[in-house]
């Protein structure tokens, strides 16, 4: 009798452990592909080395819309020529500035087409309450792309937007965030 009991319990435990490993470790590994930025942009050099603030490069336009990432032309204000020893800066100057090409940066928070987000309406919040704290990073974080949906792992989910709106008393009407 005791023998038949252990022959049930042991395979069950092995099955549980195998499922957990598969679900918590293997599946997320398979689900997300890892990508790196085309240029290893060093935020620390700019923020600490040059004492620049976020809004010097990530600007609002005059109509209140947010420009997001700076253009190659904006970077070329300083980096028209190679300034340091960094091979990635050299690559940026020769391949993008001199050729007049825009860098295809990977945006960690890229939202679907039907989402409307106003940066100026959220101006009083810290950037890092939604974005990764890249200002403290010399190497941009790995970009995890969902193989099924194509979206970034860091893209804010609708329930996260809704939770903050509910807690701060902001409207959760559909058209506040959807277009």
């Amino acid at each position, binding site marked *: 009798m005791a023998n038949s009991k252990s022959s049930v319990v042991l395979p069950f435990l092995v099955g549980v452990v195998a499922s957990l490993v598969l679900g918590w470790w293997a599946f997320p590994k398979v689900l997300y592909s890892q990508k790196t930025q085309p240029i290893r942009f060093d935020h620390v050099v700019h923020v600490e080395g040059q004492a620049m603030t976020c809004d010097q490069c990530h600007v*609002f336009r*005059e*109509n*209140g*819309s947010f420009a997001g990432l700076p253009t190659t032309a904006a970077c070329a204000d300083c980096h028209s020529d190679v300034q340091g020893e960094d091979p990635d800066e050299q690559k940026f100057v020769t391949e993008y500035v001199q050729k007049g090409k825009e860098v295809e940066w990977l945006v960690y928070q890229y939202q*679907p*087409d*039907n989402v*409307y987000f*106003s940066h*100026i*309406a959220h*101006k009083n919040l810290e950037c890092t309450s939604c974005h990764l704290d890249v200002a403290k990073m010399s190497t941009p974080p790995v970009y995890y792309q969902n193989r099924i949906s194509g979206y970034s792992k860091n893209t804010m989910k609708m329930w996260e937007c809704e939770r903050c709106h509910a807690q701060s008393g902001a*409207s959760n*009407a*559909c*058209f*506040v965030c*959807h*277009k």
Partner: protein
Amino acid sequence: MQQMEFKVKWGMVIDLDKCTGCGACSVACRAENNIPPMVDASNKLRTTDWMNIYELNNGKAFPHFEVAYLPRPCMQCGKPSCSTVCPVVATTKDEEGGIVSQVYPRCIGCRYCMAACPYHARYFNWFDPVWPEGMEKTLTPYVSARPRGVVEKCTFCHHRYNAAKEQARQNGTDPLDLPEDAYIPACVEACPSGAMVFGNLNNPEHRVSKLAATKYAFRLLVRLGTDPQVYYYSKRDWVRQLGDNYLQKELKGGEHV
């Protein structure tokens, strides 16, 4: 039915005595809201026209024959028939401004809302949108394109409302107290005869609220209790009488009879 009260209520007044039926509003709407051109638009049960134009006439023989044109956007009803029947909450009236929303990825294409809307303001996408080569550059980036299988309708160019609020925030003014003409839909902007006026119906200084209060203003099928935010204006009695199913003895027609 419960009705939400809004501080801001965007509304439109269309002067049918000034409207020439030129169709500029309809064209401006299509261009602004990414409505794809159709290869064959002869089947009117399959076409899309957020701003449709109806021809009215007084039914009399020449020389007493008269004609009027009636542009019909979404009425943005105070008590919408569409949102109450939607089984998936893809259309609601809950945002400040009183514009009835339509969220395309949520819509399942059941078309209950189309059956419910007494104004035929809603359209079903029978086909995937196709833009002729080169024309995709004319797409408005602030308006999503709709796939086959969902319902769409006029949104009073809601993206322009968002843009106006961003501009107000940039200027440091109250986004809920926009000055007149800071936000107008594409149709109103395009109207060459000045027949269309747009603004906040709750702001007594805006021209819409003044025009909507005159005795020549009326709304379509108002006795259904939909409380539309779109008003029409005409000094001709027969035009106002066509606004609802009035009886012969109700000679004047319109809401302010």
